[in-house]
């Protein structure tokens, strides 16, 4: 195995593009190192991107959005003074990954690129409308977060491409987001389902709405139609019922050791209601 620690993304892209055999990027390493130790993954080329300038920075952009470096850890985000004020749902999702110790190493971008359908940060990021910048041999592009995973363990990143930053849009007034997951225990577990909701309100009326579900389909997906169900409502029972129905209809889960199709689909409805209520309260308080 070849280990590289480039100092620029150009260099990282060149190494990845020219590499023969399985190539993996290393940031926090809480997925890839564990996979290597247990014999699940044996990459021939490992590219450590933590040495690239700016990858550890959290920057407020001119438009009020946030640019988060790819090597920023979960703990750095959860302890950040301001970003949690804008995006409490994203931050509470990041705070659920692994354990306190794991969050000291693990990165949200790694959580995204590991492409687990149960990744905690991803539904919250999708609901928030987050994007990543991707650099590759053909240049740089911006990609919505939901377009990165294409299936369990698979991404849309092409050979030589690497994510260079995570971008959260400006929150603006009257916005609120939330994330919750169901696990059988209280922590140290993998989501049986996860649900992220982001809303904007004007007074009591919802003006924008996005929802995404985790662990109910091969990839984390935005629930299209959430806006139709919620915009213009005051999150009355009928709106919550419609949202829960949409959430359940969006489910395409598998039966496995962590939950049956029936159980996951049922929980999707329960969590759509619960999380939407929290996001709504946060949005109303943010006016």
């Amino acid at each position, binding site marked *: 195995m070849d280990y590289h620690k480039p100092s620029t993304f150009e260099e990282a892209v060149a190494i990845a593009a020219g590499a023969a055999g399985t190539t993996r990027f290393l940031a926090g390493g809480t997925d890839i190192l564990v996979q290597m130790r247990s014999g699940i993954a044996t990459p021939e080329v490992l590219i450590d991107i933590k040495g690239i300038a700016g990858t550890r920075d959290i920057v407020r952009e001119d438009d009020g959005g946030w640019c988060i470096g790819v090597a920023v850890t979960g703990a750095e985000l959860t302890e950040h003074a301001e970003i949690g004020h804008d995006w409490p749902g994203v931050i509470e999702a990041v705070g659920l990954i692994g354990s306190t110790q794991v969050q000291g190493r693990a990165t949200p971008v790694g959580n995204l690129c590991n492409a687990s359908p149960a990744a905690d940060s991803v539904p919250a990021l999708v609901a928030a409308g987050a994007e990543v910048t991707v650099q590759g041999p053909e240049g740089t592009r911006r990609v919505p977060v939901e377009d990165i995973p294409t299936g369990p363990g698979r991404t849309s990143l092409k050979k030589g491409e690497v994510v260079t930053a995570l971008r959260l849009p400006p929150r603006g007034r009257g916005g609120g987001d939330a994330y919750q997951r169901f696990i059988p*225990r*209280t922590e*140290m577990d*993998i989501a049986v389902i996860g649900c992220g909701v982001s809303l904007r309100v004007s007074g009591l009326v919802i003006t924008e709405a996005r929802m995404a579900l985790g662990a109910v389909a091969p990839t984390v997906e935005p629930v299209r139609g959430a806006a139709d169900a919620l915009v213009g409502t005051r999150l009355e029972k009928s709106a919550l019922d419609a949202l829960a129905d949409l959430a359940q209809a969006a489910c395409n889960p598998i039966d496995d050791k962590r939950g049956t199709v029936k159980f996951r689909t*049922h*929980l999707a409805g*329960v969590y759509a209601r619960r999380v939407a209520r929290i996001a709504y309260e946060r949005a109303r308080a943010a006016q």
Partner: protein
Amino acid sequence: MALDEYRPQEGDEAYEGPREFRQVGTRPDRPDGFDKVTGRARFGADMYAPGMLHAAILRSPHAHARIVRLDTSKAEALEGVKAVVTRADFSKNVIFAPGTVGEFWNILENIMAGEKALYDGHAVAAVAATTPLIARDALKLIEVEYEILPHVTDVDEAMKPGAPVIREGAADRSVPEGMHPNVVRYHESGHGDVEAGFAEADLVIEDHFTTEATHQGYIEPHACLGTLGADGKGELWCCTQGHWYVQKVCAALLDLETANLRVTASEIGGGFGGKTTVFIEPVALALSRKAGRPVKLVMSRAEVFRATGPTASASMDIRIGMKKDGTITAAQGTFRLQGGAFPGAPMEFTAMCAFACYDLRHVRQVGYDVMTNRPKQAAYRAPGSPMAAFAVESVIDELCNRLGLDPIEVRLKNAAREGTKASYGPTYPRIGLVETLEAARAHPHYAAPLKPGQGRGISCGFWFNYGGETSVSLALSEDGSAQVMVGTPDIGGSRASMALMAAEVLGIPYENIRVTVADTGSLGYNEISHGSRVTYASGLATIKAARDAVRKLRQRAADKWGIDVEAVDWVDGCAVPSGPNAGDFDPLPLAEITKTMGATGGPISGHFEATPEGAGVSFATHIVDAEVDRETGKTRVVRYTVVQDAGKAIHPTYVEGQFQGGAAQGIGWALNEEYIYGEDGRLQNPGFLDYRIPVASDLPMIDTVIVEVPNPGHPFGVRGVGETSICPPLAAIANAVSNAAGVRLRDLPMRPSRILDELEKQRDDA
């Protein structure tokens, strides 16, 4: 471990009556605390030797398969590989026998497969190489051709006609004719006429219950370092609850003279019964013998789950009759336990413990030991008892609910007392069940109001406790300090309690005593640390060894003073003249005697060897409050109180720790822990991510009440406390959850999806 080692024992009358203790009952710092907090403690994997090789084990990916061809030549040819072993490298003299009589053969067959792989994870070959990575790579070069056979992992399925046969001829003579060959042992016991008893009842409830296999979940995986020379002499360092047993098994499986293998027990990172048997040590020694170098073998967590002992899973039918006033008129139980691909599921303990809490005129219990394609079960904290309590105490709770009776009053009304003929045969000497029930009734928890959505559960539990073969030596140093050598690995604070008991007898400070778990070359035989025997049996032996030393100390003083030894008392660590000589001489402190002991007769030591048979049985009553999220099925234990009879708590903090630990493990067993097998018979969750033991935030503060009803069989009244604490939790939690949810939960674990299904059925029925 032979199952009859848990045979209930009639006690010697050894209790010396109430007394004022100076040290026993205090809470000094634990002697192993500094080492464990600073990382200085050496566990199984912490030992190294010059030239040491690293071993790895190849395991079957199939639940049941004939090994058609096994070719290790490519692995042997890999650079860095120094030895490969298969079944051919172990003794040919270990004889197969049905049931648990052939336990050494069963262990051999388990640690290295013979003609068939019997479960997912069964060892088929092992490699020793210069690095762990080379050993792992070499496993991939071993060619195994399997003929896959039909498999069965469920206890009820394994008993049905047509179920795949795990091993012909494994059944012993206890099994009635006509049973499936997978039923390998049978038990029945009881007294009275149950049908007559049921006829007297106002209400009879009969119900079916199941529990899943759960793993002991110790933090430290099995690990050892072994050296075995061509001269047949060896050394073994390993993580175990009983190194004399390891010595005996390894000697048998490798054709060694027992005394030529010296075994040292490492510090232990949890055992809970799972380290009372042998999984890897003979493999490391066989590799070492072949390679001529020391071999270290450390299991991964996945190997621990796939190939070491969980407890048995159970399928149980219970029938109990009760009068309107709460009197139990008759009780009957059938207990089917699977313990993997070998005989040994502790169904007789399940049967014998099931109704042991109650004074019953009519009681009958039947047990079946069933083989399946799962790993060989190992003891797990009161083996067999928790599942029995789950089934029985659930039915009692349901009877109380339907008859409108208080669950503690009903249990008090039927409780076994001194003189009660136990459901499993003997007549109880002094026991403490009533005292635990009275303390539970008086506890503020029992009267505390419940919030909406919460339910309360009560359960009692019983465990035999055990004595067993025990040797202790105590040696005094010139400066008056003492070293105590015990042979029972410290799995629950025994070094602290031994030091307290020795300090009490010698009359010197606790801090001046060092207790060491001696290796097999340094002390007489000791049975495993199991059966909650250590504080009882090693404690009794420590007291007697200390008294042996005190007798010698008194003799030295008598010699010095020129008086008879009978005229010398031992008071507060000093020899004191007594009787007609009282006041003739100044008290002579222990350190004054030991300072000159070389010149006054030689070193002073005390010894005691015996098989104490007065282990007092122990009872507990638990109170649990739980709440259920009816939308998700998720359960939370919100309040938990353990009340248990300790006989005499030597170090109360450790006793409380045992109470809390049993409750914590019970919460995991009740709510989320289970072995999940796929259609292919492979274990789906061999890791702590999906095998869900409780994390700290899952647990409430577990309140404890120590009841002390002295054990007639111990000088200070000690009863073992380590196991009884896991007997009531499954039932107490199930009763709390059932009362919170309004539906009876009959199957463990009560995972959220299962609770939702039961709530759905409840709605459908309504």
